[in-house]
């Protein structure tokens, strides 16, 4: 039931204070003819409505959320406290810069810290999330080559294991996407060599890749890419595995995007708000979007980079997310961030060891922050698919892993426990998964009809894709 359906004329959950400004009549053309259609409910109705909705939800504050590629780590409440400080909360983006020096300083220092973490020379904090960062990065690539008069570069190479957003972002900017084949779960250097020519503008990579494997040939790949005159782009979705250990800038990447909402612990999922800063090396800093923040003596100022691709977001991006990420980085410190990555990798390897006893791990080796299991054998032997396994996991009150991604693994379950789960939680999760897999052999119908204990049972995904309903009234 929606809040609109609960509405009864005349009920109120608020009382406006007496107006202390004289009445003023607006020109007739600005007046609306019909009252706004807002729900009318009492305060208890309002509180109960949203509390009940929240109870039907699942979040990382309730338990483990090992969605591979999403880095659903616990978000410290201190971040929220900082973002809620009056000085950040009560400002307006149109205020004169002299009156928001603290916020500008935060943005300036945050981009410096992120540059240090990634090994880049400058950064924009504007993009609203990861895929928006990719789009910004690809616009920079296009502008860079246009500026050099090198207009024949129409292709962007993307591995077959990449996040789906990579080819989408490249093609939105007008590039033709060409797939690089994987070999043993890594970029096939021989295949890449064949694809690299003077028509290639960029190679987009994630390292560690979506299988949770570190691309060992990365230095060779960077060298080959640069030799052919193309740029190397880093998808920062998996940065949580390498902080303090190795930097994309040192691996040879020219452009990186980060997902502050993943690696730097701000709440996300179900559409944000996220933040996808884009960092670049020296030869690309003039192309960054505006406004950029710089320091002039003791003052922070805004400026427009010389060859900017333009604005990619209104105002300054999702500013409160920046405050949370800044708080997180200062709280953890250099050593703390390094330990985050160490624990993320350790947790993933620990869980993998437990899970490989009852599920296949197609590219099994030492993994980074995540790994991909396959339920193909279970499907062949019982007819139970990965989707059914994921739905059944819900019955045990925890969140399932990412499923059917990356595409190169059949019946994939992609698991990223993150550093914030303890040993007991990981043990329990492995137990649940083992029990579900066993059940597939003993009572497959229990899985095919799952979930049984959730507020919403199995949804019709075909209908949801074909005829999505986004509004409650037609």
């Amino acid at each position, binding site marked *: 039931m929606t809040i609109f359906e609960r509405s009864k004329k005349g009920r109120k959950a608020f009382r406006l204070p007496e107006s202390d400004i004289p009445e003023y009549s607006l020109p007739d053309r600005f007046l609306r003819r019909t009252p706004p259609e807002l729900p009318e409910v009492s305060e208890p109705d309002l509180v109960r409505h949203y509390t009940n909705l929240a109870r039907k939800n699942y979040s990382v504050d309730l338990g483990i959320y090992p969605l591979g590629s999403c880095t659903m780590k616990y978000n410290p409440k201190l971040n929220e406290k900082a973002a809620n400080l009056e000085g950040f909360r009560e400002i307006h983006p149109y205020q004169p810069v002299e009156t928001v020096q603290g916020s500008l300083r935060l943005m300036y220092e945050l981009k410096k810290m992120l540059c240090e973490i990634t090994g880049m020379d400058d950064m924009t904090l504007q993009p609203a999330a990861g895929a928006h960062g990719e789009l910004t990065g690809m616009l920079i690539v296009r502008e860079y080559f246009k500026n050099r008069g090198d207009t024949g570069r129409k292709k962007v190479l993307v591995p077959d294991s990449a996040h789906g957003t990579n080819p989408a972002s490249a093609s939105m900017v007008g590039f033709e996407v060409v797939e690089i084949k994987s070999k043993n779960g890594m970029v096939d250097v021989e295949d890449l060599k064949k694809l690299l020519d003077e028509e290639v503008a960029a190679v987009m990579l994630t390292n560690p890749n979506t299988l949770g494997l570190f691309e060992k040939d990365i230095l060779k790949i960077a060298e080959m890419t640069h030799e052919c005159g193309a740029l190397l782009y880093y998808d920062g979705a998996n940065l949580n595995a390498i902080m303090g250990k190795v930097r994309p800038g040192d691996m040879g990447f020219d452009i990186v995007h980060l997902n502050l909402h993943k690696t730097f612990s701000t709440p996300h999922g179900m559409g944000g708000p996220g933040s996808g800063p884009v960092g670049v090396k020296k030869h690309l800093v003039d192309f960054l979007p505006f406004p950029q923040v710089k320091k002039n003596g003791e003052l922070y100022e805004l400026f427009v980079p010389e060859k900017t691709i333009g604005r990619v977001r209104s105002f300054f991006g999702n500013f409160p997310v920046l405050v949370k990420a800044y708080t997180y980085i200062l709280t953890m410190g250099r050593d703390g961030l390094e330990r985050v990555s160490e624990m993320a990798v350790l947790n993933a390897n620990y869980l993998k060891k437990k899970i490989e006893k009852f599920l296949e791990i197609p590219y099994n080796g030492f993994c980074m922050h995540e790994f991909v299991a396959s339920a193909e054998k279970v499907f062949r032997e019982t007819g139970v698919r990965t*989707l059914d396994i994921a739905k059944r996991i819900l019955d045990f009150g925890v969140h399932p892993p990412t*499923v059917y991604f990356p595409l190169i693994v*059949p019946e994939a379950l992609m698991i990223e426990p993150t550093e914030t789960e303890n040993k007991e939680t990981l043990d329990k999760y492995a137990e649940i998964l083992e029990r579900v897999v066993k059940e597939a052999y003993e009572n497959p119908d229990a899985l095919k009809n799952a979930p049984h204990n959730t507020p919403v049972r199995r949804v019709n995904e*075909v209908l949801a*894709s*074909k005829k999505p309903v986004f509004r409650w009234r037609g």
Partner: protein
Amino acid sequence: MKMKKYTKTHEWVSIEDKVATVGITNHAQEQLGDVVYVDLPEVGREVKKGEVVASIESVKAAADVYAPLSGKIVEVNEKLDTEPELINKDPEGEGWLFKMEISDEGELEDLLDEQAYQEFCAQE
């Protein structure tokens, strides 16, 4: 001349004289899961072997369909617009995607016969 052949990219091709009917194999539809949308080529389009000619979207993924041979598209299965699930129900029958006029019969040699395709799937 009448024969049925397969590709390593999981299309089937049923050839009768100079016209080839193309769809995706049962194995491919099993991998994809429930199909929700099919993007078909325009009739009259000239395609080269190996070119992307159609795409199929399922609840899990989107997959490209490659032209198994060179030639001209002469007909598409318009029923799929409203009933994309035909690809799951009857992938190698009513769920066909398009028909094409073959321009180079020599290319037929590169296609797999049923046994070779089954072996290829088992290995993959």
